[in-house]
């Protein structure tokens, strides 16, 4: 590995993270899959996810809610129904117990909403200045319904690509809170459990593959998928749902919503007729702004965006977090 120390880029979810997993972790563990969740036995699926976020409380959620929804979503993307969570807390010395209570109550609420039970956990305390307040790791367990087998191997040319709503909301909420941009109205994180929506989708469409568009955003997922399936993808810029506030922040800072993290958005690959599926998704609270954004194709290799003025440009895999620009 070229840079011999860990940089923040290794945690970006983009190319450097991938390299770290392949060259360090997978090399030693020989993982059965590099997907977020894995089926172990008897249709049982497990996943684990560490949650670090600054600020801990943000508009639309907090680290507690995020630690539940993030893991529920990782289980759900396999098509499984999440049932149980285990949670481990690393807390910084000096953290207010009142704040801890708020976070735990928020976890309880999010778990109830998602229909999962938090069944065990662990607590560690580290010295002042060590853990940004707190980190939470959650492990999720779920069960695959009969007949569900979602894998990128299912994807074929002509399959449609759908997202369940506006992209970049979580990142904009965090940037606004962290950088005190004071946007009005205050942008809210989209942080939500998607298990209900996923089960509804499975009933209404020929779903091939699902991914939640967290770190790295939709563009990173699409790039990973095209690498795995050796096909191309064309995204229609005009079809990508993005809030005006997100567009404005991105224009200002030189960021691209297609690469921004979401916490309640998924990308689905589906074949056949999709109008009924989209109609059903739009009836769901978390799918109101669902949109078909593109298609799998043999026309190109890799991922391309058809711009609103008709140009075609590549959406490359980033190696690291995108940097905001100076002017």
């Amino acid at each position, binding site marked *: 590995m*070229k*840079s011999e*120390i*860990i*940089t*923040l*880029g290794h945690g970006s979810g983009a*190319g*450097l993270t991938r390299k770290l997993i392949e060259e360090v972790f997978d090399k030693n563990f020989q993982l059965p899959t590099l997907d977020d969740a894995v089926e172990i036995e008897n249709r049982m699926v497990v996943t684990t996810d560490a949650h670090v976020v600054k600020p801990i409380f943000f508009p639309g959620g907090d680290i507690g809610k995020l630690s539940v929804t993030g893991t529920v979503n990782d289980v759900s993307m396999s098509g499984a129904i999440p049932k149980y969570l285990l949670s481990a807390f690393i807390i910084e010395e000096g953290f207010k117990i009142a704040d801890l209570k708020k976070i735990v109550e928020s976890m309880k609420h999010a778990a109830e909403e998602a229909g999962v039970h938090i069944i065990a956990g662990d607590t560690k305390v580290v010295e002042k200045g060590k853990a940004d307040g707190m980190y939470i790791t959650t492990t999720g367990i779920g069960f695959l319904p009969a007949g569900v087998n979602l894998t990128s191997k299912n994807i074929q040319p002509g399959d449609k690509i759908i997202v369940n709503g506006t992209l970049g909301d979580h990142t904009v909420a965090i940037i606004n809170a962290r*950088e005190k*941009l004071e946007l009005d109205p205050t942008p809210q994180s989209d942080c939500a459990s998607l298990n209900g929506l996923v089960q509804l989708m499975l009933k209404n469409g020929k779903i091939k593959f699902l991914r939640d568009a967290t770190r790295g955003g939709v563009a990173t997922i699409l790039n990973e998928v095209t690498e795995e399936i050796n096909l191309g993808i064309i995204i229609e810029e005009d079809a990508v749902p993005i809030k005006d506030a997100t567009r404005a922040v991105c224009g200002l*800072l*030189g960021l691209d919503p297609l690469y921004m993290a979401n916490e309640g958005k998924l990308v689905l690959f589906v074949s056949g007729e999709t109008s009924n599926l989209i109609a059903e998704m739009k009836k769901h609270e978390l799918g109101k702004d669902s949109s078909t954004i593109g298609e799998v194709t043999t026309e190109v290799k890799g991922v391309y965006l058809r*711009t*609103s*003025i*008709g*140009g*075609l*440009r*590549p959406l*490359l895999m*980033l*190696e*690291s977090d*995108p*940097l*905001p*620009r*100076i*002017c």
Partner: protein
Amino acid sequence: MELSNFRNPELIKKIVTELQGWKKPVKFMEVCGSHTMAIGHWGIRKLLPETISLISGPGCPVCVTPSSVIDSLIDLKDVTIATFGDLIRVPGNKGTLEQARAKGLDVRMIYSPMEALEMAREKETVFVGIGFETTIPGIAYTIMEASRQNLKNFSVLPAFKLIPPALDALLSAKDTEVDGFILPGHVSVIIGSDAYNLLPEKFGIGGVVTGFEPLDILVGIKKLTDQIKAEKPEIENEYSRVVTGKGNMQAQEIIYKVLEVEDALWRGLGWIPKSGLGRREEFEEFDATKKYGITITDTEEQTGCRCGDVLKGKIIPPECPLFGKVCNPNNPIGPCMVSSEGSCAAYYKYER
């Protein structure tokens, strides 16, 4: 006109058709990195006839920041370094600020220089003062604030650059062939379009100040071809919705209250007379070069990187032997590959 019309496919098609008939080979330089990105982003090069080529200029603030600035920051002890984000992956001779951060240097990415004032309340803070006329007023204002609040923990490492003197130097050196300039929109909001009058007057080359939407850029190109056809080089202002002839006088006042013109070192271009800004004497306590005894010198190592020629518009990025081979966004050899505004990054991302 509604902003969305600047992306109207019908209007764009009309102007592209007109441009398609252009016969005489011409080279236009887009001075500003944001234009390079917008041109790539919208696929504008592919909409133009072969006779019109667009070359990039020196207008990427991160790209022209000397290694010596980055190295001096890496050498600082017990201070917070506050910087705009895109500088942190630019390699100096001692690596990048991002690598230095992983080894313990307190480097923080900020969006506004005023955030650095907040940091200075807790700890000695150095703000990296890079940028062109667009960003300089905000930084100058921050220095005024630091002075007003008597915040002795705060200083700025001045590495400011000015666009018109750089264009003057490029053209005077006679190694850049340009038939017209697409002039920076945001810089011009501050300095006004009159600031470029030297281009037609001294060099007989015209320019159009343009915005960043696809139609803005295409109209700018069309106007340049019209000027050439009429043999009347002049400075035109396509971006009149925000740019005036004289610019923002208040912002200019703030700049020159705090800073004064001096020679500046441009990475890839060398020293250019009167092309930068340093602090005025009454603000010397906020000058990091004075506070920490920093001298900015030309220390660029020979890596084979041809960013300098790219910034001068002498070559396009794919003509550099390192481009896309050893030099890519993950392993940038030169600064033009790092910044999202850099020509090499734009070519790598959009034009391969």
